[in-house]
């Protein structure tokens, strides 16, 4: 029979990626001095199922490699080899490598990374290394022959699941000399005989130099259904017997392993960046949704009944009004719970950081303690996908520029281990993500010098501390003295800023020298809905994201100054802000052609304040964002469209895009 495996391979990929993720997190949590056997088991399980699955699907490269992993882990698991930090390192590297391998297989590319050969050699070296002396009682250096008495009582269903004892015996035979004896007293009367069931038991005698684990491998697939008992018969040492004792509770042990795996599962959603196509939703959320739909159907039935009445009585009118109210509330609830489906806890974004921080910390010789807070905070999947890269960048920056080396920290009287905190929480309709370090903070003088050298700031211009901090968000700005692997190429903070603005978010920076820095990212919970301010320009209505608006005001004529032919600035308290005439940029007719005739809306554009000249402010409302690109094109200065209450379309202004469309760029003005 032909079975199309491809339908299962997607499941295999997802499970393998999950397995790798749990391997990674367990490895990172692992305490090298006294590793938790449960954790080692989890890692082993993950490696094992990847090996099994890849073998089934014919991904031999992966299967062979995971086999090496498995062998090492098995030795550690059985206590024959001690876990070292070197093991941890190569295992972590393997996780990366396997991820790449899976990726290659998924995209049907061939995989040839020199890493593979290197790591294979490392494993080989590790595995051939004699096992440390103190372990000798259990595993003598020269492999010696042990005679094992194995009783194997097959479960009744073993044949139904497609397991053939003969194959297992053949595998055992490869380990040494095998004697097989069949015990068939369990066979029932012919009338009760089920031809598909297996009633047989065997007693096997095997003389081998192989460890017990190797023997167990043969029965791996059936150990849950069958009674298997291993008895070592050598007088030689007591150790194998001890091992055998350890093994006897296998079923319960593996039970508990499985329990931990299944416990971990509901919260594990398939790898976040690699697949945008699917999403796992908790049953709870789905149930809520189904309830809501049920309510909706009831309300619909109620309204339907009224609709079928011949005449409208005052009573039925009241019932109808009630029904409509219910309908409105259910629709609102339904909308909320549908939104919930796209919401994932931010731990999916946070999860990658322990590894990242560990690796970078090691590379830089810095001691870092990573604290994650508010991992349960939920946000939209698409927002999460887009915020990960900026966050990675900020964390790298904090580690590279922020935190000091242990010596420097000691001199400053700080604890040698620096701390880096990632914190997430909800505030209003926004999610706030904070990245806090207790490192050196921003060196304002250095930044100012650099900015002057680059011509971003005039040499006699004095800036407030806050304004200096904003400079790091300018394109082409980096203060790292040496360009390192991590940062210092001068692309960076401006990209972070741009990414966050694309999500309609903002970023703030607070920094105190020698105390540390705190980046605060504020993002909308979802990309599907936006809090908007409706504005009128001539006969056109536009939506401006509320989060970007600082204030709106009428500007008296004496606060308006001209800069050259083109630009006008207004004085707002002690600041001068460029004003962008929206009607000019969009080539519309407008009532207010002069700043003094209209309203100036002070908005945030790439962390600079800009005034937008509009005719009138209309209402504030939540709008559902629709794409213009679906049926048309990207339009400069417009981020999307929405449908207003009266059914007409209003366009949503993309402030950064509008600013570049209008050619106002305060950085360049500084330069000029």
């Amino acid at each position, binding site marked *: 029979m032909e079975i199309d495996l491809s339908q299962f391979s997607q499941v295999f990929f997802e499970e393998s990626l999950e397995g790798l993720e749990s391997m990674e997190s367990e490895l990172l949590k692992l305490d090298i001095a006294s590793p938790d056997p449960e954790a080692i088991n989890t890692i082993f399980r993950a490696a094992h199922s990847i090996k099994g699955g890849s073998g089934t699907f014919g991904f031999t490269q992966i299967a062979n490699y995971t086999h090496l992993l498995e062998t090492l882990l098995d030795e550690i698991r059985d206590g024959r080899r001690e876990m070292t930090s070197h093991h941890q390192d190569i295992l972590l590297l393997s996780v990366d490598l396997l991820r790449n391998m899976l990726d290659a297989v998924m995209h049907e590319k061939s995989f040839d990374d020199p890493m593979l050969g290197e790591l294979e050699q490392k494993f080989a070296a590790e595995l051939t290394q004699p096992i440390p002396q103190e372990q000798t009682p259990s595993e003598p250096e020269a492999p010696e022959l042990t005679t094992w008495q194995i009783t194997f009582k097959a479960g009744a269903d073993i044949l139904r699941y497609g397991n053939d004892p003969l194959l297992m015996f053949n595998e055992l035979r490869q380990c040494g000399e095998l004697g097989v004896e069949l015990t068939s007293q369990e066979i029932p009367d012919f009338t009760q005989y089920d031809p598909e069931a297996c009633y047989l038991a065997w007693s096997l005698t095997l003389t081998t130099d192989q460890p017990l684990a190797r023997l167990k491998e043969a029965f791996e697939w059936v150990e849950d259904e069958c009674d298997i008992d291993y008895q070592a018969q050598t007088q030689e040492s007591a150790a194998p017997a001890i091992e055998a004792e350890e093994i006897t509770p296998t079923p319960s042990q593996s039970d508990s392993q499985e329990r931990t795996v299944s416990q971990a599962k509901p919260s594990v959603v398939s790898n976040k960046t690699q697949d945008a196509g699917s999403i796992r939703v908790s049953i709870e959320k789905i149930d809520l949704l189904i309830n809501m739909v049920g309510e909706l159907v009831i309300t619909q039935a109620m309204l339907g009944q009224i609709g079928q009445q011949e005449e409208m009585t005052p009573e039925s009118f009241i019932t109808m009004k009630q029904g409509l109210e219910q309908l409105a509330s259910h629709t609102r609830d339904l909308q909320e719970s549908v939104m919930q489906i796209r919401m994932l806890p931010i731990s999916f974004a946070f999860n990658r950081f322990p590894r990242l921080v560990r690796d970078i910390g090691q590379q830089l010789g810095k001691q870092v303690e990573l604290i994650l807070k508010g991992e349960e905070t939920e946000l939209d999947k698409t927002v999460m996908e887009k915020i990960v890269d900026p966050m990675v960048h900020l964390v790298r920056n904090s580690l590279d520029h922020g935190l000091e080396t242990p010596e420097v920290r000691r001199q400053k009287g700080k604890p040698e281990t620096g701390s880096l905190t990632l914190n997430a929480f909800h505030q209003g309709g926004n999610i706030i993500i904070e990245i806090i370090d207790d490192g050196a903070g921003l060196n304002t003088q250095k930044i100012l010098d650099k900015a002057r050298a680059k011509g971003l700031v005039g040499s006699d211009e004095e800036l407030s501390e806050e304004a200096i901090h904003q400079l790091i968000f300018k394109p082409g700005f980096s203060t790292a003295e040496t360009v390192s692997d991590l940062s210092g190429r001068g692309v960076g903070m401006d990209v972070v800023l741009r990414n966050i603005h694309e999500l309609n978010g903002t970023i703030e920076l607070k920094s105190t020298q020698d105390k540390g820095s705190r980046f605060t990212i504020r993002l909308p919970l979802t990309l599907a809905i936006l809090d908007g301010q409706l504005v009128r320009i001539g006969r056109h209505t536009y939506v401006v994201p509320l989060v970007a608006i600082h204030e709106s005001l009428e500007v008296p004529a004496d606060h308006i100054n001209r800069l050259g032919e083109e*630009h006008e600035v207004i004085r707002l308290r002690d600041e001068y802000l460029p004003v962008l005439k929206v009607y000019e940029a969009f080539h519309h007719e407008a009532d207010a052609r002069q700043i003094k005739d209209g309203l100036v809306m002070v908005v945030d554009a790439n962390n600079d304040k800009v005034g937008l000249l509009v005719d009138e402010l209309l209402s504030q409302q939540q709008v559902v964002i629709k794409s213009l690109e679906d049926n048309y094109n990207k339009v400069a200065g417009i981020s999307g*469209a929405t449908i207003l209450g009266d059914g007409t379309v209003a366009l949503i202004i993309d402030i950064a895009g509008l600013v570049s469309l209008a050619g106002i760029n305060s950085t360049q003005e500084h330069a000029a």
Partner: protein
Amino acid sequence: MTQADETDITLTAKDDASEQYLTFIMAEEEYGVDILSVQEIRGWEPTTVIPNSPGHVKGVINLRGTIVPIIDLRQRFGIASLEYGPTTVVIVIKVCVAGEHKVIGIVVDAVSDVFSVHHKDLREAPDFGEETDLTFIKGLANLADKMVILLDIDTLLSSEVLPEAAQLSNIINTIDAESTQAVSA
């Protein structure tokens, strides 16, 4: 009975070699579009103007929750446009541009008829030399003593929504912006 069936079959077999076209009138000329690409026909309604778009792009409308751009075919073809009135018709068309399906509305004077055009009745558009781009004309068809211009709607509308076209206008915009900046600096 059996004979009638057979004739039916031969008729359908013949129909396979033909395509149905919805025709519309614009400036006394009759044009046809593949009827399978037509989603619906609606009356003209006011649109929301897209800033800095070419003149023949009249704006976008809300078509049951989807944002659909509306293009004036008269202006697209360089014919003087008419005042829009209650009889102005918008044909909503599904096009396939670079593998993506888009929904676009075109403004025409009036919808005329539905014709079956056999492949043998199709004539190639005459060559007006290299200056004139006629790739959006699929061919000419003679139907009941009149000529219908059959449009290749995918090609015609792809220039409105192709990313390259958008990029080009962006490039032009940036060049313009830079030159103004240079002047102001």
